[in-house]
């Protein structure tokens, strides 16, 4: 075990994969000398050289497409979008190329690429740099979507994502980067599609991921003090989804709340609600609840930003409302 930040854990995971497999390359802005704004590729240029650390111009639409082309040639590119909001200028290579090419070619090609992108609010980055866009990605068939919360998971999941043969969207919450946590020294590659039951409980299941994992754990702690027992599940990957774990938990607690940072309308909470309603309706003692971001653009001003995404108190209130407590 050694203590490292989430950003260091991602860096370590990528570094090990680059050492293990020379087909793995890095593609993106400021990845070279600077080592990326969040220091995620620090030292890579020195260690792996400019042929494996491709520092690009600000041309996301094309360097992401370029990575797709490289993937078709057997390379395993890890692309960084500096903020996930910039998918707005790189959607075509992701949605219409990477995600579809395997299918459209009748299985002739595989696109083993990872698109990493910081996401999330709380850093006062305002309207064009603060979104959580995982719901947009999960609606695009052909993509896998990974949203780690802890340093250990981040490392194990980036490794799995790099080894995966399908395009993987890997979303890193900016406000988790600096979080220091224990990471096992031995190599762990966590299969995509395995949720993590962080806290066992009997009254209600709370599904969450990424930064909200910490908010929800705090809420669960406080609720425990009031005699409410929450089962907290960190989904870790949204596609594929660990349905077995969700199902087992709902069958135990009979109540479900989904907590996410992103925009509520059309969020992941909606899809999870619908799946649970379709398959576990009779198990439920209460309507599935959703706690999510408002249906607005991220405001800059700190007090406004803080009411835009869910706080610990919001989840506490939602649980109590749902359980009539």
């Amino acid at each position, binding site marked *: 075990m050694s203590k490292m930040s989430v950003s260091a854990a991602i860096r370590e995971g990528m570094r090990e994969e680059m050492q293990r497999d020379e087909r793995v390359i890095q593609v993106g802005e400021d990845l070279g000398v600077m080592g990326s704004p969040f220091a995620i590729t620090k030292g890579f240029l020195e260690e792996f050289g400019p042929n494996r650390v491709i520092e690009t111009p600000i041309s996301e639409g*094309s360097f992401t497409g370029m*990575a797709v082309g490289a993937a078709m040639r057997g390379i395993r590119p890890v692309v960084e979008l500096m903020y996930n909001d910039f998918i707005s200028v790189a959607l075509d290579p992701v949605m*219409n190329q990477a995600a579809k090419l395997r299918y459209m070619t*009748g299985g002739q090609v595989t696109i083993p690429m990872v698109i990493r992108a910081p996401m999330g609010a709380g850093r006062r980055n305002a309207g064009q740099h603060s979104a959580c866009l995982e719901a947009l990605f999960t609606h695009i068939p052909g993509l896998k979507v990974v949203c780690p919360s802890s340093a250990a998971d981040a490392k194990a999941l980036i490794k799995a994502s790099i080894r995966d043969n399908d395009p993987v969207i890997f979303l890193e919450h900016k406000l988790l980067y600096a979080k220091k946590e224990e990471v096992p020294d031995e190599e762990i590659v966590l299969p995509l599609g395995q949720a993590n039951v962080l806290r066992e409980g009997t009254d209600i299941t709370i599904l969450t991921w990424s930064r909200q994992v910490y908010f929800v754990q705090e809420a669960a702690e406080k609720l425990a003090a009031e005699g409410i027992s929450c089962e907290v599940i960190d989904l870790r990957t949204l596609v594929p989804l660990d*349905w077995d774990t969700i199902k087992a938990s709902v069958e135990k607690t009979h109540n479900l709340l989904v907590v996410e940072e992103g925009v509520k309308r059309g969020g992941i909470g909606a899809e999870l609600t619908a799946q649970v309603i379709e398959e576990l309706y009779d198990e439920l003692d209460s309507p599935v609840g959703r706690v999510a971001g408002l249906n607005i653009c991220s405001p800059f001003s700190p007090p406004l930003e803080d009411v835009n995404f869910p706080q610990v108190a919001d989840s506490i209130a939602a649980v109590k409302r749902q359980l009539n407590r």
Partner: protein
Amino acid sequence: MAVTKTRESAPSYSSSFLLGMYQRMVLIRRFEEQAAESFTKGMLAGNIHLCIGQEASCVGACTALESRDFMTSTHRGHGHCLARGARPDRTMAELFGKATGYCGGKGGSMHIVDVSLGILGANGIVGAGIPIATGSGLVSSIQGTDEVTLCFFGDAASNQGTFHESINMAAAWNLPVIYFCENNQYGVSVPIRSVMNTDTVAERAKAYNIPGITIDGNDPIAVYETVRQAVDRARKGEGPTLIEALTYRHMGHYMGDNAWYRPESYMEEATERDCLANFRARLLGEGISEADITAAEQAAKKEIEEAYVFADESPYPDISAVTEDMYSQMNDRCVAR
């Protein structure tokens, strides 16, 4: 750096080389005619973009490649793929949506691909193949191997941001990519002249400090030689070239469009400069016999007839195939839920 290139001295080519190119051009035209006929009969559907008139640029460019090289194609891609050696039967079967098609019927006319031939995808998104080709060039560059990548795109595609972004990267990094613009003067109904402020697409090469060359795209030998030179440059590590082949799209943009928006002069010119007729005449001029030419034509025709029968008689894919190929590691929940 943009120059209009005319061949100074004609190197001599063997008859079999010339006949081979001609036969492939005829093959493409017959293929497209057969596709048009089948479409009209209602045997196939969707958006079918034919390249009749552009056979010289398809064949001239692809002939300049070696088997280890790569290419990307476009929505108007049948000719590119056939020129590269794709099988007419599996290509036709794909147009018919049959299980025996190159993509098992999942791709259709706009997505014909035989990856084993180094074809890295046709593309229904205008301009989307340009970054993909650039990525292939990047791989050759970082691996220090000497394959080149040929990137087909249309005149109108050169107004997409990907054109600028990709060629800029290829130029900055000296990637072995040949950006090959088939300028048939129209993007659907829009004359390229009305949405561009230069006389040629090749002039845009100046913005990247790479060679930009405009050629007669109806002359397969001019195309072959120009691409060959660009291939040599690229292979030697001297970087990308932008080539603009002036050509004609004889048909409408796709089946169902009769191109009424073009002036009559367009088809008059196109007919006069028709690559097939002119290349045939040239072959005769080079002493190739009428009999040999006819034999090549017959062979091409026969191949297409067989391709048609193959496509027609092939089965549709089983509907169980519909969810296959979406992910490489099948995870039921990804597709089912």
